[in-house]
């Protein structure tokens, strides 16, 4: 095989792994479909993967549970895991790399030096800023030091999952470690947020293939999320939407309506407020997603979702009142108070007029 450039292209490494060209074309087609691109883009992706030298990727783990990595390596197509993880030159990732300790750090620093300004930095996890960042240290450095160092020479940064995008559970009240999502820590680099706890594996694959194949970020929305996957609410692509529009709701999890598969809106489904692709791409190779399994969405890809009220009720807690006090309970109480006030005023003014009349 003729080596056209100093660095291997994606196609070259794919063929080297023992896949056929047919597998490669299937992979390109999968990716185009995931990215929501039209048919003609298949050729573009194949072309890009054929010609572009592989981009080095540094994948950092900070305060997180590694569910993003777990989701990613289970994404639908085997080439995703093999190529993206093993061969996209994932030069550094604590979870999956063979090297450890000094070796691992050395590999990372070599990549950072050699490919300065070219590598993609993927971040999984939030970064604690409290107590000088001492809550999360890797190789003797705090997460924030590690991150700043790696971000400096990155071509683009991908924030994987809700931890890196929103802070997730670590930043839930009272946020003891001052866990901070990474978009608040860097402003001079192209950044993409892929929220979800975890994000869907195919979504992650779609995003990273887009970045490495086209050398630029996919189209993003106002919150820096890829539009192809986060433009719609889970509610808008839900197969139970017809029950919502018909006003047919599950009232409790063991009722007849639940058996019939009615809409889970009233038992706390956060689908109407959550932007994600669960309804279309689904989970575990397209098997199902929470609502299909009879459980409401709890909005894991939304900002601050741990503090947004109870999972099984369609209520939003008012800050400072505790969860049992909702807008409606307070609203009803105050409406009652207003009504009492109005009635008292009416009675008092009537009495006053009577007194006035009797004086005259």
């Amino acid at each position, binding site marked *: 095989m003729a080596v056209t450039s100093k660095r291997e292209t994606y196609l070259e490494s794919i063929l080297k792994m023992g896949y056929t060209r047919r597998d490669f074309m299937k992979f390109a087609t999968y990716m185009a479909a995931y990215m929501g691109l039209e048919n003609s883009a298949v050729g573009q992706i194949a072309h890009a993967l054929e010609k572009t030298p592989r981009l080095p990727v540094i994948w950092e783990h900070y305060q997180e549970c590694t569910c993003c990595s777990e989701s990613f390596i289970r994404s639908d197509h085997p080439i995703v895991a093999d190529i993206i993880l093993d061969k996209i030159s994932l030069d550094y990732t604590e979870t999956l790399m063979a090297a450890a300790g000094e070796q691992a750090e050395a590999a990372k620093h070599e990549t950072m030096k050699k490919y300065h300004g070219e590598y993609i930095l993927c971040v999984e996890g939030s970064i604690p800023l409290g107590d000088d960042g001492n809550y999360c240290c890797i190789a003797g450095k705090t997460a924030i030091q590690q991150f700043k160092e790696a971000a400096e020479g990155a071509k683009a940064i991908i924030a994987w999952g809700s931890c890196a995008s929103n802070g997730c559970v670590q930043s839930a009240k009272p946020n003891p470690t001052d866990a901070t999502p990474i978009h608040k820590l860097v402003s001079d680099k192209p950044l993409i947020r892929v929220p979800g706890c975890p994000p869907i594996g195919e979504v992650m694959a779609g995003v990273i293939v887009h970045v490495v194949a086209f050398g630029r970020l996919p189209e993003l*929305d*106002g*919150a820096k999320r890829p539009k192809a996957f986060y*433009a*719609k*609410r889970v509610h*808008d692509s839900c197969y139970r939407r*017809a*029950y*919502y*529009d*018909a*006003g*047919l*709701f599950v*009232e409790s999890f063991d009722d007849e309506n639940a058996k019939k598969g009615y809409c889970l*809106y*009233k038992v706390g489904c*956060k689908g*109407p*407020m*959550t*932007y994600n692709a669960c309804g279309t791409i689904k989970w575990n190779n397209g098997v199902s997603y929470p609502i299909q399994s009879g459980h409401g969405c709890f*909005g894991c890809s*939304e*900002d*601050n*979702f741990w503090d*947004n*009220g109870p999972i099984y009720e*369609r209520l*939003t807690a*008012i800050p400072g009142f505790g969860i049992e006090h909702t*807008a*409606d309970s*307070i*609203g009803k109480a*105050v*409406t009652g108070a*207003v*009504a009492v006030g*109005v009635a008292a*005023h*009416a009675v*008092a*003014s009537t009495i*006053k*007029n009577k007194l006035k009349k009797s004086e005259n």
Partner: protein
Amino acid sequence: MKEKEFKRIYVWQVPVRIFHWANALSIVVLAVTGIIIANPPALQSDHEAYETFYMGYVRVSHFIAAYVFVAAMLLRIYWAFVGNQYAHWKSFVPFTKKWFSNLFYVIKHDVFMLPYNEKKSKLLHISVGHNSLASFTYLIMFVLALIMVFTGFGLYSQNASWWLPKLFSWVPTFLGSDFTTRLIHHISMWLIIFLVIIHIYFVIYHDVTEKEGEVSSMINGHIFKEKS
């Protein structure tokens, strides 16, 4: 009892009255449908989902009423610049000394019904249109209406195809999420409900106690004032 003489003053011009009733109607529809959307009643049905469209109609009514609300609001904003003195925007944000003294007068004697000195009560007559407390309340109401429009269209923008609601698509991003946006939308609805209750009560109260025809004034535009 000695006979009193009244003069008839034209206060509420036609656009103000159109605004008022369009606004009132849309608020009623918006609040009722909004409460249903927030917590839909449990309905049992023999029909399959494809045969009914109950929530769909409720939501469509909410959105149509929202457009009526915005249209009325735009009309009122326009009229705040070209209308008469009672409709002018300056009557809502005067913050002058006279305005403050009227404000305290209204709070003391109308709200808390403290006895007043008849000779000093001349101040009463500066409020042919809104009194100071009322105009200030409508200023708050206007701010609440703006919050409703921004959060409401912000939530709606994701499903919209028209450019106007799409102008508000930055709102949920700015506030953090749809959760927060919805919460603000919901709380503001309750605040508007409180103001509506107080508004209706005091209109009737003034009509009964001062006999100036306040209730009918929003239909025929005229208020009766005692000749002094």
